[in-house]
């Protein structure tokens, strides 16, 4: 009755850069060919994901790739509901997880898959692993979370921006500040926001690191200056694209890509 979601199943086409569904996928999907590339950037709140992604996009476009972005809780179907529910404090671990899964599925089917079908590079600002990490910290059954996300397509490349809580705290405080949810205040882990943030993020980072080894993420040290992180990201992405897309990179394009990686 319960399926084993972590046994990946192959899709039909050979032009898929070895794309696999995480579980049963979407059986009703008619278009199986996904020539694009799916790159997920994972990492906790305040680690610098969005700044890094903002720098990746123009670079990839200059390299001649069509790029599409997608981010957690940005689906037109769910984002209002999620914000409202967060404001109302009536969520349980289960409803929270299912809302995120619905948001994810909506973006998967309306943004990610169409872009991949059209040959785009899709950069996902967080992917299902964020749900895996959070749900473990919130105390949901990890097996259940993974089953629910069985509809997901596995990314071609997952880059994890790693940080420690000590480095993270000043960044978040100086940035947008500590938020109720990102501090895990709903879990009542601490008596004050700061303590709660510290404990929640510590758990979360531990869990991300565990997932990184389980799923073979590429880990980039996000404590480095922003430009150094960007250079590392680009070299990993370029390395992936070279192996995934050899025909394309055999062209005169080759030299150009090397120089522009170094430029920024």
């Amino acid at each position, binding site marked *: 009755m*319960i399926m084993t979601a972590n046994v990946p199943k192959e899709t039909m086409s050979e032009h898929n850069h070895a794309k696999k569904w995480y579980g049963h996928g979407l059986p009703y999907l008619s278009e199986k060919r996904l020539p694009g590339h799916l790159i997920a950037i994972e990492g906790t709140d305040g680690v610098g994901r969005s700044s890094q992604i903002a720098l990746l996009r123009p670079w990839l476009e200059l390299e001649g790739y069509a790029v599409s972005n997608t981010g957690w809780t940005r689906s037109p179907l769910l984002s209002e509901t999620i914000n409202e529910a967060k404001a109302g404090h009536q969520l349980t671990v289960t409803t929270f997880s*299912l809302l995120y899964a619905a948001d994810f599925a909506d973006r998967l089917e309306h943004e990610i898959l169409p872009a991949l079908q059209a040959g785009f590079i899709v950069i996902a600002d967080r992917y299902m692993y964020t749900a895996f990490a959070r749900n473990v910290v919130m105390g949901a059954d990890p097996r259940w979370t993974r089953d629910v996300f069985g509809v997901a397509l596995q990314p071609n490349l997952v880059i994890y921006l790693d940080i420690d809580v000590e480095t993270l705290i000043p960044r978040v405080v100086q940035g947008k500040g500590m938020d109720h949810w990102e501090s895990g205040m709903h879990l009542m882990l601490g008596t004050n926001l700061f303590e709660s943030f510290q404990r929640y993020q510590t758990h979360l980072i531990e869990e991300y690191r565990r997932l990184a080894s389980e799923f073979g993420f590429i880990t980039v040290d996000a404590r480095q200056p922003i430009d150094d992180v960007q250079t590392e990201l680009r070299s990993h992405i370029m390395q992936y694209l070279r192996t995934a897309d050899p025909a394309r990179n055999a062209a005169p394009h080759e030299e150009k890509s090397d120089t522009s990686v170094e430029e920024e």
Partner: protein
Amino acid sequence: MLLERWLRARGYPVIFTEWNSSRLVRRSMSRGKKKNLLTPTTFSLLHAVDFADRLTYQIMPPLQAGMLVLADRYAFTAFARDVARGVHPEWVRAVYSFALRPDLTLYFRVPIEISLERLLAGRAKLKYHEAGMDVGLSADPAQSFRIFQSRVLEFYDKLTREFELRTIDATGEIPEQQRMFRQIVQDVVLHDYDRERAKGNHVRTQPR
């Protein structure tokens, strides 16, 4: 409704809960339906959110307080309907694995033509999703309804074996259906309930 009144009249504490009635996802659901944004997967997940929300706030507390909960549709509706829309049967069962198994599940079965007749007698036209128009089976709502609901019925028939649902033939007269309905509820649920209550165990503290 009739059963609820009957149980109440006999002094049983009853709570009634209905499929797709929680406020939590109402906005997404109506937005999704109106703008036709729902896919089989998001349709399924939104209903699961609704169910999980009602399970926590409307179903579990009364059960823990020793009451009877009457649910108009349960996870089995998703197992039949969402699978007819195209989601994987194992996936939707896994999504609902947090659901409590009911003590008794009754399945009111009617042939397609009768349900079509009844629905159209009550209102002007079929709803887009109940006719399965989103699945793209036919441009004609009545025809689409027939094809889609036949699939749903087929899956329900399988579920009756998988989960031991008790089938009630819903083609007949309502008083006759009620008589059977009450008899089964009496035998399967109330019998045990009364015995426990007689022993003074009317408050069930542990969820089952």
